[in-house]
């Protein structure tokens, strides 16, 4: 047990909650599921604090945990329980009422981004929004760096409406 790592996580995690939730939302496209993912991520991070190396980026470590919980547990469970995957249209509505306030243009960009395949939209978020380098994104996503490059290029072309040579390819590597 590493007390120091636990203390660092407990001190810094609360400020990161909204960003974790946003990543959860981009993955699940469901605000409630994103909330569940955040809680499961917090529990796992606190329980496995000894695996966190002080001095490295806590946000990257938490992104990896959140993603792993989504891939290994919640996503398959949702498919199993018939909840399936959520229509991107409904993402912009929280609690059935509270519309996310964005200006119209930003709202359209967001909506189109959330319509991208899962691999592309999470890569987009990590690199262009969260500011991860390609290398860091490849590490969090557990894919080769070339896959990060392809996903970003394809996503950018789709978002801009430019012709993509392989527009339909989500270039997901196996697994």
């Amino acid at each position: 047990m590493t007390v120091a790592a636990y203390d660092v996580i407990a001190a810094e995690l609360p400020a990161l909650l909204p960003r974790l939730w946003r990543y959860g939302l981009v993955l699940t496209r469901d605000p409630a599921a994103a909330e569940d993912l955040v809680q499961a991520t917090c529990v796992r991070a606190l329980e496995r604090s000894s695996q966190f190396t002080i001095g490295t980026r806590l946000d990257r470590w938490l992104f990896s945990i959140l993603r792993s919980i989504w891939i290994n547990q919640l996503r398959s469970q949702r498919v199993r329980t018939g909840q399936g995957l959520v229509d991107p249209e409904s993402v912009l509505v929280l609690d059935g009422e509270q519309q996310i306030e964005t200006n119209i243009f930003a709202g359209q960009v967001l909506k189109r981004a959330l319509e991208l395949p899962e691999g592309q939209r999470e890569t987009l978020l990590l690199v262009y929004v969260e500011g991860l380098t390609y290398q860091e994104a490849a590490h969090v996503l557990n894919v080769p760096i070339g896959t990060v490059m392809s996903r970003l290029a394809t996503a950018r072309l789709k978002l801009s409406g430019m012709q993509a040579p392989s527009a339909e390819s989500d270039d997901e590597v196996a697994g």
Partner: protein
Amino acid sequence: MARGPDNSNAGDALLVAYLDGELAPEARRELEGRLGADASLAARLAALAQASQPLKSSFDALLKAAPRARLDGAYAAALVRASRRRPRSYRQILTAAAAALLLLIGGGAAGYLIATGPGNLFEEADTFEDAWIDAVAGQLSLYNSASVEAIQVSEAEQKASLAKLGQMLKLDLSAPTVEFEGLTLKRAELLHFRGQEIAELLYASDTHGPIALCITAKPGGEEEGEVESRNGLNFTYWAKGGRRFLLIGDAPEDRIEALADKIAERFSL
């Protein structure tokens, strides 16, 4: 540093990586050389540069929409849950409880509490859950591969046990449902713990130590666990459809996790 993309939009991927400042110096110089000589490539680069979208500001709208009070509540619950499971010092437990309380009072996390139930947050370590897992872990840690392999139960006897347990749990426990690749069912028996009946299926594993699947009737909501360790064994538990499942064994975390997924799928009601 980026080396190269892995599909047919290779050219665009390289240009995007160039725009993102992600090309290694050598690749950058090489591309710049080609850009100087190839007007169509340069035009493509210009088009890609122009087409960039205000992604950061668009996605930042989501941060503003994050349900902060509920997330604080989720974090408070996580602090308490984690403090219950990890071997921790008294000081840390006090700190966790204090932090959780402060968050709940200050964060206005009432919505979260109503959703999850306050009992969930402040359960003590000695719940049925923990005690049950401890008991099974204690029992299973007495077995190793050889001792579980040595268990001999006739096919007819096993069939009868499975039928009886299945009847008790109102679950189909017939052979194909409880057979898993790489595992051999050695014994199915009825156990009791604190007045609760538990069906235990004990398996020998081709590649690891013994693995047990325990199922008990448990009215109430659904719950999902993660893989944790106790007595040197990995386990995960979940509740669904009025039953509680515990999968525990002397096997790596990912094996337990994958197996749990398969079992949950088999018993999805």
